[in-house]
């Protein structure tokens, strides 16, 4: 091989057979990324090959584990300062890619690893795509998931490869397909068994296809299954529009723009279609929604996963053995995720039977994966062998970490703490997976409160990625560091909060459900409350979710809150819920009767008597106000958590809201939501609501001060620093 070009982005070499190989290896980046620099280098190498008479064709591949991870979100997340220049820059990129695919020589992408987003778009500049048939490889366009649209030609070109319907599905759902599926759908053209087969297969294709033409450049360009202006095309587009609203409720411009690029450009020349794509891409990057999703959904969550919340100055403390107390649903789930991450797990319950039942939770989950081919019997056994089910309290001896997940009862928890600390080494951490009881209170039972912490998992543990770490009054930084290390070890997302009733997530979640009930009480129709909440982006309505939690449990939580007696607003809510539970037996979903009626094998229906009890009337309140109340209330509570120091960072507040209780990501999260609405507008509206609906909407002075200073919510901690420090 003769190296023609070599730089920090790629190597271009030519073999004796006259076939060139461009190997992308962006040495300055953790993975190969699609950006202007890369396209410039690619174009330079490709044009050298095209202009070289001795070269018959070119293979494009990567020497990294991934072919290419995608676009450079660090760049895309930045504000666009000159819109015109940005658009022109995009057009230049398209032109450089078009030069390659129309250069007259065959280009083949030899896809050795993951090719997503921009990576797939680089592969689309090639006339043929060959991929290794490895199920760990994912191919597709995930841009929509970060609020964007594929902007490197992916949106304009995909329908040519797989037809309008499948193409739109890939683009709108951000499908990440395994190689076999991608071949079936037309995204790639060929599979090979191993990495070693890639280059020979690519060379064979080049030899057999000296003059390839891209489907979008063919004289008779044709969309598989028909274009937009065919009966099928019209039905597909109509249905896609309907479903985009069903899923996004109009809150995610990226999805709408994907549809628009296809609608406006599909019937035109590819160059015109790419221009349209560039216009929408420029537009989508300027939307608040895309910025929010990138900031919180991508950067903040990724940083959190790496343990950003960990106090500085502590080395990674690996957990080799974890003791889990209580093998109920939570304990069983925690055992599973810990064993899966390679830890030795002791799963202790009062009875052996209970402990075994807890372990069988893992067996069931692994069996499901086995049936889908995601694991092997050997791997499954290895995981199961790591879990020791026991009724012996001493079996947890030697653990690096204890996680207590027994019934939510202070006395019981205290007893278990004492019993366990007797066998736990003095420097090891004891964590309680409580969702309601203050950690400082539980720590009173501990001999070593500095080693005592809360690790609050969400249910079901194997599916929910968020973990809320709760710091008690005496919890040491070292203990926090250990808890964060554990959570990153099990590949979940830790946020660290200070102790408070309901901590952070449960406390804010409570305002969501309670505001729903206040609205109901005022006469807003129940359907309107539920539908408006969903329209605003909450995954479930507040009344349905109250039923899930159970109204009885809701009553208990209120009764155990010392603030209840002195708070008139809270009392109103309590009396109402008490009436529903005690007079009408509306206990929640488990009892088949809550705000909804639950009948077997039927869709749940709102309890018809609600309308009568609360004089429901559409004209009580406009939908816009209903929606604002539902979201503002949660944001205000999140802000109070920030102000009171329950939250230690704005980002943790955003992450916790999005991953913990489903606050819509397009807003950036419950705190970023204040910026999304506009801080001044938010305050003015809350003031209005406080006057009309109750003091729960009263705005803290510190937020007013921030608005007066023209600050963003993300400046909160900056503003708390003493002046001149």
């Amino acid at each position, binding site marked *: 091989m003769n190296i023609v070009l070599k730089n920090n982005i790629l190597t271009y070499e030519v073999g004796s057979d006259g076939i060139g190989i461009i190997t992308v290896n962006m040495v300055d980046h953790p993975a190969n990324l699609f950006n202007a620099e890369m396209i410039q280098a690619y174009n330079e190498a490709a044009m050298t090959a095209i202009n070289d008479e001795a070269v018959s064709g070119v293979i494009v591949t990567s020497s990294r584990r991934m072919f290419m991870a995608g676009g450079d979100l660090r760049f895309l997340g930045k504000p666009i300062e000159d819109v015109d220049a940005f658009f022109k820059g995009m057009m230049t990129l398209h032109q450089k890619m078009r030069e390659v695919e129309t250069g007259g020589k065959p280009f083949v992408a030899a896809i050795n690893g993951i090719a997503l987003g921009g990576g797939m778009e680089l592969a689309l500049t090639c006339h043929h795509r060959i991929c290794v048939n490895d199920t760990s490889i994912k191919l597709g366009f995930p841009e929509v998931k970060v609020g964007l649209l594929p902007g490197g030609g992916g949106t304009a070109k995909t329908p040519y490869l797989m037809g309008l319907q499948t193409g739109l599905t890939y683009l709108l759902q951000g499908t990440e397909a395994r190689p076999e599926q991608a071949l079936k759908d037309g995204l790639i053209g060929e599979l090979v068994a191993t990495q070693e087969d890639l280059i020979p297969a690519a060379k064979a294709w080049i030899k057999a296809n000296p003059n390839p033409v891209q489907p979008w450049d063919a004289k008779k360009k044709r969309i598989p299954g028909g274009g*937009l*202006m065919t*009966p099928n095309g*019209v039905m597909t*587009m*109509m*249905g896609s*529009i*309907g*479903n*985009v*609203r*069903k*899923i996004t*409720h*109009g809150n995610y411009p990226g999805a*709408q723009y994907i*549809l*628009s690029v296809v*609608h*406006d450009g599909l019937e035109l020349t590819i160059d015109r279609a790419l221009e349209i794509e560039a216009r929408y891409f420029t537009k989508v990057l300027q939307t608040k929604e895309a910025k929010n999703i990138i900031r919180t959904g991508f950067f903040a969550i990724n940083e959190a996963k790496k343990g950003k919340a960990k106090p500085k100055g502590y080395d990674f403390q690996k957990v080799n053995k974890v003791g889990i107390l209580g093998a109920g649903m939570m304990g069983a789930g925690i055992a599973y995720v810990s064993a899966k991450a390679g830890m030795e797990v002791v799963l202790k319950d009062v009875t052996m039977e209970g402990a075994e039942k807890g372990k069988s939770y893992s067996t069931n989950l692994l069996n499901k994966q086995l049936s889908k081919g995601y694991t092997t019997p050997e791997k499954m056994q290895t995981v199961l062998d790591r879990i020791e089910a026991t009724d012996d309290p001493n079996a947890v001896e030697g653990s690096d970490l204890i996680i207590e997940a027994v019934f939510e009862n202070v006395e019981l928890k205290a007893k278990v703490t004492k019993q366990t600390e007797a066998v736990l080494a003095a420097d090891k951490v004891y964590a309680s997976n409580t969702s309601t009881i203050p950690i400082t209170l539980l720590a009173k039972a501990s001999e070593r409160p500095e080693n005592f912490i809360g690790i609050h998992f969400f249910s079901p543990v194997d599916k929910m990625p968020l973990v809320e770490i709760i710091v008690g009054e005496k919890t040491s930084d070292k203990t926090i560091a250990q808890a964060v290390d554990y959570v990153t070890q099990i590949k979940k997302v830790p946020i660290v909060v200070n102790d408070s009733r309901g901590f952070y997530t449960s406390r804010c979640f409570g305002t969501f459900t309670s505001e729903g009930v206040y609205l109901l009480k005022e006469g807003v*129709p*129940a*359907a*309107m409350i*539920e*539908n*408006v909440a969903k*329209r605003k982006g909450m995954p479930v309505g507040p009344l349905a979710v109250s039923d899930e939690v159970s109204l009885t449990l809701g009553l208990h939580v209120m009764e155990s809150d010392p603030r209840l007696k002195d708070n008139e607003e809270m009392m109103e809510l309590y009396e109402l819920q008490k009436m529903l539970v005690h007079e009408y037996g509306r206990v929640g979903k488990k009892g088949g009767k809550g705000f909804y009626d639950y009948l077997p094998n039927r*869709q749940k*229906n*709102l309890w018809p008597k609600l309308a009568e009890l609360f004089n429901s009337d*559409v004209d009580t309140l406009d*939908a816009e106000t*209903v929606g604002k109340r539902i979201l503002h209330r949660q944001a205000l509570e999140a802000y109070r958590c920030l102000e009171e120091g329950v939250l230690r960072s704005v980002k943790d507040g955003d992450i916790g809201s999005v991953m913990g209780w489903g606050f819509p990501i397009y807003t950036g999260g419950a705190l970023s939501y204040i910026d999304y609405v506009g801080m001044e507008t938010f305050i003015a509206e809350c003031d209005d609501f406080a006057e009309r609906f109750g003091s729960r909407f009263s705005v803290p002075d510190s937020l007013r001060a921030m608005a007066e200073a023209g600050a963003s919510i993300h400046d909160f901690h900056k503003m708390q620093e003493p002046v001149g420090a």
Partner: protein
Amino acid sequence: MEAYIYDALRTVRGKGNKKGALNGITPTYLTQTLLKELRQKHDLDTNLVEDVILGCVTQVMDQGANIAKTAAQQSGYGDHLCGVTLNRFCGSGLEAVNQAAAYVRSGFSDLLIAGGVESMSRVKMGSDGGALMIDPAVALPGHAIPQGVSADLIASKYGFSRKDADEFAAESQKRAAAAEAKGLYKSRVNIKDINGITVLATDENIRPGTTVEALSNLNPSFAMMGKMAGFDSVALDRYPEVERINHIHHAGNSSAIVDGAAISLIGNKAAGAKMGLKPRAKVVAAAVYGTDPTMMLVGPAPASRKALKQAGMDKNDIDLYEVNEAFAVVPMRFMQDMGIGFDKVNVNGGAIALGHPLGATGCMLMGTLLDELERQDKSTGLITLCIGGGMGIATIIERV
């Protein structure tokens, strides 16, 4: 100046599918048949007619390239005769009447033909494309949904049940069958082929003996669309007070897809004198009113109120109503909203039994109403139609 209706004719209606009797007849031929019948019936001096205004919704293929002028040219009325085709969706046929009346009342024209045509068996509904439903920039922010889902939304919001709709539909069939049996469709014209052989001499879609029970067995037509294509959610996003969409409409309680045409002769008093014709009625008021594109079929009531106000009338001044039965819920909601009884509405049946040839229906309803006012010797009637995209149209006529 007043605009007088000298006559109104309509064709028989054939089922709008491949097996329909009029499938082999072009829409131009349907229109011509009426134009020739009008000339013959009144020994009309065709030199007096200035223009043909035709409503037609799907203006492509057979119905493309200005079918009004095409039909005018074919009619033999003379080269002087002009033609203009308009599209106000389902209100097109009535819009043509209103425009003709406006031309006459303004003094711009003395005598015109206004009507509409739609061969739904030959030119498929929706085959003209358009941005309304498929341009995401329009449809997404507009909460656009198909009409059937909109009709089901209205039923869900205003509390009409499947049984209500089926009972209404059975009554429409019963009234139409009775009218047919008594020969009340006086303004109806049969379709004969080029040899003079009768192709269709009755309204093909009427089903005498339709029962509520039989209708109750039909599957809802728009449930799948509402669920699979997300349109139920689109509707609820706009009308969150509705818990869920109750899909009550089906082929038996929605308007039938048919082929047909209608025309009317509209002019001033002087034109009547020249023709030697006595006017049958005059156009008193005409109005349109827009609603949102989601609950798009509730326009008839506000449009009718607007027309009544214009005429200085109230609902008690109207002897009879024709409300297009696009879906059973449309006239039901109209009656609920206006506070009027079924005894005054669609007394000889409606589009559920007879069919709804989109561009023609408005003019057909006017002819049916005029015949019935004369038969009952009553004076004033109101015609109204709901219109896709969110409009209503209403016209008040008064016998003279």
